[in-house]
């Protein structure tokens, strides 16, 4: 029996996991990162467009601050987010980006003077201030009031991840690569670490730790077409689910990005539209202004994706052998801009489509992109169901995104939540001593070994790839952008049947060491369980909120549904998840529910909304001489680790 002991065990070497590891290591904790792949290859590297932080240095960001960022984030979430967490986030984002600047990210910087930009398909000249010279600049992104998305050309995730991993290397943090966590070790209400399968040797290893952090990214690959990397299979969420104790939050909240290329689903960044690109239909007509006259192509992602789908349903899509698509036109931005600021996009178009976006339109359509749901945590990042289990990044439902995350807010979340939760993880390690009987560890190892032995012993049965493909197709066809009760019920029934068939998977290749088929045989049943949490959550939620859009229940229903879905898999033999709900308390909100500003306002309001609105107004009115920080504090109190509490300086306004 091989057992590795450590203080802080971090599952996942993407931006979020590495930042937690850095925090706990800096606090003197022995720290190990586990990853399927070398850390620098994590999916974080694929983020192109940028990171939101309200630095307000660029002229188009003037007047930006935490409050504006908070407002955009809450609205973007369709009031589904946790407002204390959104506050923790907006206050820390400027610090996170400045930290990354010292660690080496070559953020694009401000050149003072005139520069030409494209706004609403027209070239306009803006003038950057002299005093902002050399500070971090920002571009426009969907659903934001200010230009707030900081970037390095369109390789933002890459430069962030390289800086982060290099910092981890400097701190001598070991990353155990090609290791797959396949279950959590837990007893009672305590998590003790994880069982890991070495993907090269096939060996099972137990990692025992004071704190275990799941930072395994999203679950996009339960869908047939996704912008996500092929390893984004949601295993972190799945192993938490399988404990029966740690709930997953809002699994039905799945984002579709408007512009992935057809047919392969590789993303072209929102920066394309942020920088001035437009969407066109079969007639070459720019249709978004008809639907969203105000924000047009830069409405929130969920809105643009739905509008595109609506437009294609009207017969305005461009037919292709792979189904209809629309065009993304960035030709107006010109060669120089595209080759400098959108060069990954250019490379992708050249290699995968054989076109040049400087002169050609790009075939795109909405594609699965981001998982708002994940391992539910408290604001300190800890699971409400298991002590010592933490989660951060896309794999978590810390819940600053609610039902729709804004572009640029995700890599920001990874760095920010990593900083914050990392401190709480270190606190936990300092305060905890664990002693764990070897029999417990052995029990978990044996269970996994038995599972593998059973798979190897079976001589005939189900092909794992067929099961996976069937699941992905169900999710795509029946749990996609537009949803309705009948199709969701079909999806649930079909997924349930698939899960049953998983009891009979055959592994043709019997090699005990590296064995891709076995890896899939272990993952696919878990992915189907996740798919069931998504489909069941979507079926139960009889309203439309953010990315969850029910054609049979088109209104946002705060009265009955201002709550977060919690999914549990209570018993190993259950066929379906158990859903529970957690209310969002309007009376504690700094920003009570309102109209998001897209389409018609058909919200069914909660009775508390008016009460809280009046209360907020009264509190604000009672403090005529207070500044925005004092008013904020009076409306909503939130906690942060001491070292992250300070106000943020901005050029021209100081700490105001």
């Amino acid at each position, binding site marked *: 029996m091989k057992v590795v002991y450590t203080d802080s065990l971090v599952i996942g070497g993407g931006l979020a996991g590495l930042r937690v590891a850095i925090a706990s290591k800096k606090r003197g904790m022995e720290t190990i990162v586990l990853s399927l792949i070398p850390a620098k290859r*994590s999916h974080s590297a694929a983020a192109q467009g940028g990171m939101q932080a309200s630095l307000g240095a660029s002229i188009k960001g003037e007047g930006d601050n935490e409050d504006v960022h908070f407002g955009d984030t809450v609205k973007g979430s369709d009031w589904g987010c946790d407002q204390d967490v959104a506050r923790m986030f907006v206050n820390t984002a400027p610090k996170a980006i*400045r930290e990354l600047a010292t660690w*080496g990210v070559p953020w*694009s910087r401000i050149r003072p003077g005139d520069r030409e930009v494209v706004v609403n398909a027209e070239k306009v000249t803006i003038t950057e201030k002299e005093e902002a010279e*050399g500070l971090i600049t920002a571009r426009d992104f969907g659903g934001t009031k200010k230009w707030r998305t900081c970037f390095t050309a369109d390789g933002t995730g890459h430069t962030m991840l390289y800086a982060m991993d*290099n910092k981890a290397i400097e701190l001598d943090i070991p990353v155990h690569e*090609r290791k797959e966590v396949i279950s959590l070790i837990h007893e009672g209400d305590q998590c003790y670490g994880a069982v890991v399968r070495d993907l090269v040797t096939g060996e099972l290893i137990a990692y025992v730790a004071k704190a275990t952090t799941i930072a395994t990214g999203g679950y996009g690959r339960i869908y047939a077409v996704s912008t996500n990397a092929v390893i984004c299979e949601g295993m972190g969420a799945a192993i938490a689910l399988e404990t029966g104790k740690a709930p997953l939050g809002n699994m039905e909240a799945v984002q579709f990005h408007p512009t992935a290329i057809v*047919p392969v689903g590789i993303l072209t960044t929102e920066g394309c539209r942020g920088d001035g690109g437009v969407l066109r239909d079969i007639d070459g007509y720019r249709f978004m202004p008809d639907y969203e006259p105000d924000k047009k192509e830069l409405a929130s992602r969920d809105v643009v994706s739905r509008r595109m789908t609506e437009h294609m349903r009207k017969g305005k899509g461009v037919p292709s052998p792979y189904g209809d698509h629309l065009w993304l036109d960035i030709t107006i931005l010109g060669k120089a801009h595209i080759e400098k600021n959108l060069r990954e996009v250019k490379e992708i178009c050249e290699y995968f489509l054989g076109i040049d976006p400087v002169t050609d339109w790009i075939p795109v359509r909405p594609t699965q992109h981001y998982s708002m749901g994940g391992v539910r945590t408290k604001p300190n990042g800890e699971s409400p169901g298991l002590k010592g289990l933490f989660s951060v990044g896309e794999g978590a439902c810390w819940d600053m995104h609610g039902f729709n995350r804004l572009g640029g807010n995700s890599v920001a979340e990874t760095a920010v939540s990593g900083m914050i939760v990392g401190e709480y993880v270190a606190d936990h390690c300092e305060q905890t001593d664990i002693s764990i009987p070897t029999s417990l560890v052995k029990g978990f190892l044996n269970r996994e070994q038995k599972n593998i032995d059973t798979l190897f012993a079976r001589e005939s049965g189900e092909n794992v790839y067929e099961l996976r493909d069937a699941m992905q197709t169900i999710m795509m066809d029946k749990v996609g952008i537009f949803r309705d009760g009948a199709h969701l019920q079909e999806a649930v029934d079909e997924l349930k049947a698939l899960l049953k068939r998983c009891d009979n998977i055959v592994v043709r290749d019997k090699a005990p060491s590296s064995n891709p088929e076995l890896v899939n045989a272990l993952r696919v049943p878990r992915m189907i369980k996740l798919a069931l949490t998504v489909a069941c959550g979507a079926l139960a939620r009889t309203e439309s909120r953010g990315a969850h859009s029910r054609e049979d229940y088109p209104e946002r229903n705060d009265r009955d549904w201002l709550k977060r879905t919690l999914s549990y898999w209570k018993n190993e033999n259950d066929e379906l998840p158990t859903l529970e709900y957690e209310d969002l308390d309007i009376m504690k909100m700094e920003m009570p529910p309102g109209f998001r500003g897209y389409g018609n306002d058909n919200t069914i309001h909660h009775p508390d909304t008016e009460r809280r609105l009046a209360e907020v107004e009264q509190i604000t009115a009672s403090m005529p001489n207070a500044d925005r920080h004092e008013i904020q504090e009076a409306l909503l109190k939130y906690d942060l680790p001491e070292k992250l509490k300070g106000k943020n300086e901005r050029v021209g306004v100081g700490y105001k």
Partner: protein
Amino acid sequence: MSDKIQIQANGNGPGRKLKFNILRYNPQLAGDKPRMVTYEVEEAAGMTIFIALNEIREKQEPSLQFDFVCRAGICGSCGMVINGRPDLACRTLTAKFPSGEITLLPLPAFELIGDLSVNTGKFMRAMSERIGSWIHSSDADNRDLTILEERMDPDLADEIYELDRCVECGCCISACGTKRMRDEFLGAVGFMHVARFHMDSRDHRSDDDWYEVIGDDDGVFGCMTLLGCEDNCPKDLPHQTQIAFLRRSMVKVA
């Protein structure tokens, strides 16, 4: 303006039979020996080597090993030797090969994990530790994060990004004649990172410090400037210019 999807950029027409000759060898299996095995795949429109290899694995040979993560030419996982040249397999269209015959070998110069999978991760971590691929500055950890960030020349930031685009795929290492002869030779990916940090105003290392890192035959003086690196770097990084620059800087120190 285009009026059709042009993924079928080849003219071979779909349905062509492709022949993949793949080096098979699993060092984990006692008694296994390296051998070439041929698999046939029917070409589909827009097919990449990523798609073809998955099809082989799912339908014909479940034990076949290879590495893909982003499948979009971004993460650097999928370097392999494709008809004699190291390249990223995920963004290589099968249509590129008129003969329909594609030979795949694992990248040489790296530890073999199995079949087409090699341990670039271990290599790159060691390279990073060797050159200290992080900002060396007392400021990096002590700066007050509430104050304005340190200003930076916008041109310099852009120039650093140009060199920071390396995806650590290892193609340059596999294409390097010197690396094949000298095991300890740092190689082009290392030089590119050195050049990147050398250029960065936030990094306080002097040329003397850098000389300690690359000022010998395992460093920049060992390079024979045959430029296998430049010719095979999928990110088109400016190896020739940067190696020449580093060499000049190091000569000055010497």
